[in-house]
């Protein structure tokens, strides 16, 4: 393993900067600002079996030091994704982590089954814990729910195709949840994702951006102190904007860092982070 390389189960990423789900468009838009093959991985927007239209605007609203998002996991559905978006990402050289979300365990199992044979999928990220809790989708609030979902997705996937479990940003229970999803077959966990929040009109939303960075740090500390996950990779979720943030999260126990809100403020953020981290190895 070369310097900077990250292992997610059997998958090797060339670096620790990973685009977070829902913040990289279809990939094409981001590709104008960064060579996708230079990233550790590209996480897709969350894909469901059927197309989801998403709620009317506003879907993104500023909060102090953060952005609230309530996109409802709008997406064109798995069939369109597999036919149009995935082949393009693969051709662009991205290591594609497909984020999936579903209404129930049956839908998750079907998503796993259909992704098992899709060429170019590097990993599957389970987004059963979206802080937006969009209507019509399962909300895995309890660690054992998250573990059930991971198990359902895991069942029909090839053994060397890793499942990444995105955990609820629930500091007191993050270690318990990590233990549960790893036991269910997750090869990596994402901790400290967007925080459960609400838009000014009261609709559930996720809060990402610098405001969430200290929470991500705390999640890493909880994992470090409370649970032994063996060799399972840990991805840090929300809040990183600068190379110093990324280094800090790596030092706190993360193997890789997901970058999301930073891209919405500056589409070149991922390219900048990759450059900065290459310049002065941590």
């Amino acid at each position, binding site marked *: 393993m070369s310097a900077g390389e990250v292992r997610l189960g059997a998958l090797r990423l060339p670096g620790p900067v990973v685009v977070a789900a829902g913040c990289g468009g279809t990939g094409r*838009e981001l590709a104008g600002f960064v060579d996708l093959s230079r990233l550790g991985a590209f996480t897709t927007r969350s894909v469901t079996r059927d197309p989801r239209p998403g709620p009317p605007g506003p879907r993104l609203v500023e909060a102090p030091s953060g952005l609230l998002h309530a996109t409802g996991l709008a997406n064109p559905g798995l069939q369109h994704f597999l036919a149009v978006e995935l082949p393009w990402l693969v051709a662009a050289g991205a290591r594609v982590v497909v984020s999936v979300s579903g209404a129930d365990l049956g839908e998750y199992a079907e998503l796993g089954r259909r992704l098992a044979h899709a060429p170019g999928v590097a990993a599957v990220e389970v987004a059963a814990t979206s802080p937006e809790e969009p209507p019509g989708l399962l909300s895995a609030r309890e660690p054992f729910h998250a573990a059930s979902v991971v198990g359902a997705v895991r069942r029909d996937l090839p053994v060397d195709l890793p499942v990444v479990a995105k955990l609820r940003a629930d500091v007191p229970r993050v270690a318990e949840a990590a233990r549960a999803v790893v036991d269910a077959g997750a090869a990596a966990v994402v901790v400290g994702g967007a925080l459960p929040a609400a838009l000014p009109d*009261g609709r559930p939303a996720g809060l990402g951006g610098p405001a969430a960075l200290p929470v991500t740090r705390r999640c890493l500390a909880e994992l470090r102190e409370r649970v032994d996950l063996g060799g399972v990779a840990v991805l840090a979720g929300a809040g990183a904007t600068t190379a110093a943030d990324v280094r800090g999260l790596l030092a706190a126990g993360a193997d890789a860092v997901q970058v999301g809100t930073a891209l919405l403020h500056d589409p070149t953020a991922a390219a900048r982070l990759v450059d900065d981290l290459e310049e002065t190895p941590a």
Partner: protein
Amino acid sequence: MTSAAVPGSRAPGPSVAPVHVEAELLATRRLGAYRLLTFAAAGVAERFRPGAVVALSLGPERLARRSFWVHRVRPVGGHGASVDVVLAPGAPGSGSAWLAAQPVGTRLPLTGPLGRPFALPREPVDCLLVGVEASAAVLFPLAERLRERGCGVHLLLGARDEAHLLSALEARRTARSVTVVTADGSVGRRGDVGGALPERVARLDPDVLYAAGPLPTLHAVAAAAEAHGAWSQTAVEVPSPCATGLCHGCPLPVVGEDGAPREVRACTEGPVVRGDRVRWADLTGDPWAGPAADPAPVRAAGPAGERP
């Protein structure tokens, strides 16, 4: 939406690759109730086509980006070409107020040009351009481009009063006719563009209508075009917090080529779309409007809304 084209026109397609640069504020001046900001932004002006926007990042504490129609590009000594945007400041705490207060020399990250520009007719046809207040900024470079192609350019400009009327004098240099309406009658006729529209369409018999302004105006123009058998191109202002197609936060409800309703991203598949493709009924009202706890909406002079 795969096509915003006017038949017999050059379909705009997705804009050429945008660039992300550190722009320098070269000049800032009052323009009636607005401020005109001139930025040196290397590579942006060269790629620009009328209808495209630029997005600005306003510093670390404001994470959503602000988008503006490009009002003008022109050569500036030592800077290549510069980009003008029109700012409608005034709302307390808004990004526009902050931006309007920035001194010459301020450097800000700027991305552009973004989005699909206006489709231009191939033939020299008659065009009616309808604009309201600061949104009309986007019509001025369009008018020039249409005139270069030999089109007959007619403008219908509206505002609440003279101070909010954008550059009507300048418009007269480009357009064959300019009609001005103000709500208070301080300049031109008293009224609004919706009221003046039927008479203008009947008299000018335009082949294409272009529109920029609030949703009811765009809807009225699209309907008038359809009733008249003309094509319409509407520049739709949907709050666009990233403006680059990354967040899916700018839903624009349209009818696809196949007749099926769908949703596109205003910042990438728009902001200019064919008027007969927009599901106006699903897009009326202020998208920022919420219950009382939600602060008053602030709209930029561009397709991105802003939060106070």
